């Protein structure tokens, strides 16, 4: 098989690449591994010390890593474009460059996602993406899309390699003890029979149809990470197509650079000719012009609309002290220079096109930087921070080390891969054979036609000092000789037929009353001038101690219906002793509800204890009505008791529970005679509370909207069905090769 002259020539030309490793090659690997090793060290530092070692901070939360992420996913487009579109259109000159394009795709799709991992603060929790993944999040879209894209690219690359693998199986490579069995295994008994050939061609076509929309989707999803936020410069509908175009542009650029490099190191001048550079150069500048058009459209729209926040980002980009130089390079140089080089015949040669491509790639990297950083530096609210590193992003050595490690890894993988299988297909496919004739006639004609805050810490320290001072003042004062006179307040409460005494101990320190905790308070009852200690309790952190007055004391009738209580504090440390007194006359409040034609009323009756344990109606007493709420009491009315009775309208507009039950409190507060007395009642006259909302599906909920779930299922099954089918055909090829 493959007896044609071209294939034999190629085999003869490419086999040495697989058999020998030059000293330069070894040196290159050593250098690359060193750079990668340094990156691994930087990663170790980042994991141990946290993201503080990077230039990322609370406002610029993403930096070089995300720039590299977009960049690598972007250049992966080379494969999708060249191998997909050129294959489908049967473009004759594609064969020598098709494998390089696919390798760019596979390698950069493996490296790109590593950068998004570097943005993640807790790598140990990555399994959470699987355990708790929410398909409403563009990050999950990305995870799904990139894994699918990578799988497809690997399968596609493999399909395109099967023919060459079978040749290498039949012509064993020297010095390849462990590689030859791999060639044999991977070549799946491919013998280029008519049936096998047909199956392989159909599968390759099928996959290239699937991979094109998939690639567009992958980069759109990447753009949506930014487009879905409410940030100026990001929240733009043009973002997805803009990212797609920029990606293809940079992918083509990288492909040209890679072609140029391998042409030099493997001496492939016969295979990769000026025609390839010219054609790809034209594709590149068309894409560059589209990219320039999208950029112009994006910034013109923002500038014309001149929304405050958009203007802030634009101001940064056009400010000579900020990003103007980079912006000019990324947009003007990055678009115009390649166009000039490719279109003006005088400038157009292999080296200059490769140079233009390198400039375009660099410009596109910078453009991604300009998409990410200036927007993050322009939050909607002023970026009020005195720490310069929180205001302005600048990448640290860790980020640069990992950036270069990624580039080094890209080169290393590429180089090693080129040692495993030739960098371009050995086998020339059918339509390829006309190519040498074609290039002379068509190309020249086509070319002729085509030409046309530092001191923030001060404030913080001051704040801390104030806090420290406040917390230490009691102990500071202890060194003072003068003793502090605390205040002891004694209050009486009658709540739900329990009689309570509450004492509050406070001391004035630096003009402010602070509660004294852990102090002993003695509660006493005075009868006929005799003080009896009822109870001793300790104050809590609010300086408060309380005691329930025993029933028998109340039952004793007091001093003609009046009771005298005292609370005393014996003094402790630098605090002098203090006493609080309270005399009270028992008061009984009764709350009831009634409905008249005038409306719903709350009625209160008030009685005081008279001589001989009788209860007599109270004259003149102010009562306040409250509704208890979570934190405090909401005042809903007040009334004066006349002849032992008062009534207020029930606050029917105040929400109760779901059935409308609402509690109303009637309170007598800090009354000189009666102390604090209250009564309460509950009735379903309040405004009923609407029932809790039933969990729904939505962007902010745990469950995604159904259309999203269905879309995802349909898209994923479509793509994976094709993958499965293609994998099945590979087994079929293997089965057919048995005979």
């Amino acid at each position, binding site marked *: 098989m493959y007896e044609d002259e071209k294939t034999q020539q190629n085999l003869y030309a490419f086999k040495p690449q697989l058999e020998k490793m030059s000293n330069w090659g070894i040196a290159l690997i050593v250098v690359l591994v060193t750079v990668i090793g340094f990156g691994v060290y930087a990663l170790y530092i980042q994991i141990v010390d946290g993201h503080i070692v990077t230039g990322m901070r609370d406002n610029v939360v993403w930096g070089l890593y995300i720039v590299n992420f977009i960049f690598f996913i972007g250049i992966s487009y080379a494969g999708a474009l060249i191998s997909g579109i050129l294959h489908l259109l049967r473009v004759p000159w594609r064969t020598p460059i098709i494998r390089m394009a696919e390798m760019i795709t596979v390698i950069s799709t493996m490296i790109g996602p590593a950068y*998004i991992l570097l943005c993640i*603060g807790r790598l140990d929790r990555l399994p959470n993406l699987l355990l708790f993944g929410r398909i409403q999040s563009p990050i999950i879209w990305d995870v799904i899309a990139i894994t699918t894209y990578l799988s497809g690219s690997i399968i596609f690359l493999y399909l395109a390699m099967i023919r060459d693998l079978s040749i290498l199986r039949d012509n064993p490579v020297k010095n390849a003890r462990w590689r030859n069995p791999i060639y044999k295994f991977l070549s799946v008994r491919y013998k280029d029979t008519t049936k096998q050939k047909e199956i392989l061609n159909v599968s390759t076509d099928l996959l290239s149809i699937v991979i094109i929309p998939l690639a567009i989707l992958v980069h759109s999803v990447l753009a949506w990470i930014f487009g879905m936020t409410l940030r100026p410069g990001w929240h733009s509908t043009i973002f997805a197509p803009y990212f797609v175009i920029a990606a293809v542009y940079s992918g083509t650029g990288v492909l040209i650079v890679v072609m140029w490099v391998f042409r030099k190191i493997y001496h492939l001048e016969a295979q990769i000719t000026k025609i390839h550079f010219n054609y790809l150069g034209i594709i590149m500048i068309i894409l560059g012009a589209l990219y320039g058009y999208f950029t112009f459209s994006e910034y013109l729209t923002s500038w014309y609309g001149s929304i405050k926040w958009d203007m802030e980002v634009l101001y940064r980009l056009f400010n000579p002290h900020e990003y103007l130089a980079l912006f000019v390079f990324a947009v003007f140089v990055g678009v115009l220079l390649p166009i000039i080089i490719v279109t003006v015949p005088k400038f157009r040669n292999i080296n200059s096109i490769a140079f233009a491509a390198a400039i375009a790639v660099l410009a596109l990297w910078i453009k991604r930087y300009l998409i990410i950083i200036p927007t993050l530096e322009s939050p909607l609210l002023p970026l009020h921070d005195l720490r310069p590193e929180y205001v302005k992003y600048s990448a640290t050595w860790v980020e640069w080390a990992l950036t270069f490690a990624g580039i080094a890894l890209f080169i290393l993988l590429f180089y090693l891969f080129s040692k495993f299988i030739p960098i371009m297909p050995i086998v020339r496919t059918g339509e390829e054979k006309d190519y040498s004739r074609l290039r002379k006639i068509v190309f020249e004609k086509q070319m002729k036609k085509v030409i046309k805050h530092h001191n923030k810490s001060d404030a913080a320290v001051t704040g801390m000092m104030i*806090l420290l001072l406040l917390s230490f003042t009691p102990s500071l004062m202890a060194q003072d000789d003068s003793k502090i006179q605390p205040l002891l307040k004694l209050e009486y409460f009658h709540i739900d037929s329990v009689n309570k005494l509450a004492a509050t101990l406070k001391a004035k320190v630096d003009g402010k009353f602070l509660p004294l905790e852990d102090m002993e308070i003695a509660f006493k009852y005075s009868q006929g001038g005799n003080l009896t200690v009822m109870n001793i309790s300790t104050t809590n952190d609010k300086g408060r101690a309380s005691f329930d007055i025993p029933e028998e004391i109340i039952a004793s009738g007091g001093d003609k219906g009046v009771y005298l209580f005292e609370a005393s504090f014996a003094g402790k440390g630098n605090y002098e002793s203090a006493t609080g007194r309270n005399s009270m006359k028992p008061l009984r409040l009764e709350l009831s509800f009634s409905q008249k034609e005038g409306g719903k009323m709350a009625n209160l009756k008030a009685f005081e204890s008279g001589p001989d344990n009788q209860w007599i109606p109270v004259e003149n007493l102010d009562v306040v009505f409250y509704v208890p709420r979570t934190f405090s009491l909401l005042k809903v009315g007040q009334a004066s008791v006349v002849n032992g009775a008062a009534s207020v309208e029930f606050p029917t507009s105040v929400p109760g529970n779901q059935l409308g039950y609402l509690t109303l409190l009637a309170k007598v507060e800090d009354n000189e005679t009666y102390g604090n007395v209250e009564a309460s009642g509950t009735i379903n006259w309040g405004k009923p509370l609407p029932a809790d909302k039933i969990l729904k599906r939505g962007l902010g909920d745990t469950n995604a909207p159904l259309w999203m779930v269905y879309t995802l299922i349909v898209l994923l099954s479509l793509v994976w069905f094709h993958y499965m089918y293609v994998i099945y055909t590979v087994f079929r090829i293997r089965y057919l090769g048995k005979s």
Partner: protein
Amino acid sequence: MKRRSTNRRNFLRLGIAAGATALIASGGSVLSAISAPENKETGEKIKLLTPDGKLVEVDKGHVCCQPAGNLEARQGLPDKKMVMVIDLAKCRNARKCLQGCQKMHHLPPHMEWIKFYLLRDSEEMSPYWFPKPCLHCNNPPCVKVCPVGATFKRTDGIVLIDNDRCIGCKFCMAACPYSSRVFNWEEPKLDKGVDAAAYSPETSSPPKMGTVSKCDFCPDMVRKGELPNCVKSCPNGVFYYGDRNEDAVTNGTDTVRFSELIDTRAAYRFMEELGTEPSVYYLPAVDRAFDYKEGFEGLSEEEITLYKKEANITE
């Protein structure tokens, strides 16, 4: 009445859960004030209202004082809808709220869950101080983008973060239009005791390296019937906090009808046009209690210059 000894969650469903008027024993503030120190098995009984208006008595330890675990914290306090009203007319950038907040959440001095801006809508207008906690949006951009559901919106309106689940991708920080979120860029330096405490998304403590944090609206305090520290620390009563379902907010001193307050004072929500539907309402800075310049007190020269630059003040 038979006392109920069901677990806390079931009880909450029954009691606070359905009965909006919760602590009727004596009215929240008084009760918590006389009660024993927090977080102890109290043995103290409090009364709660069941949905059908009956009173039941339970141990206080069953309803409050312990912040919820990671999964329970996703539920939200039943039948509540927490809101905050910030009275810009009374703010003079004293920053006591922030100090109270940092103390309560054991935050380092530079980590600010409440940020202070000097805003000026245009050059003819007068500058005003603008304290900004997390706005706990009802349509939260941060929650939408979280890939693992580590930040979530609860039924009570609170947006919380589960720092045990957060992978630290910072997407929520990029998505928040209000710069409310901060990142633990390095291992937090914690006092002894704080680091050993059990983590709860409701206390946001202890913080964890490589994860996001922000103002949590203090649901642990709400469980206890207590106000968040920012509300309590403000000397001017700027912050009103409460349950919109109860139609009441309080700044610790005054308790007012929420609907009346936002109606009579023409409240607005910040950047309503973004469609985020914040739970924080602002009362416009009219009839101000302070001149904005008083807010410069105690600030460094550098910070004053920065504020003036942000507000376009040239003098």
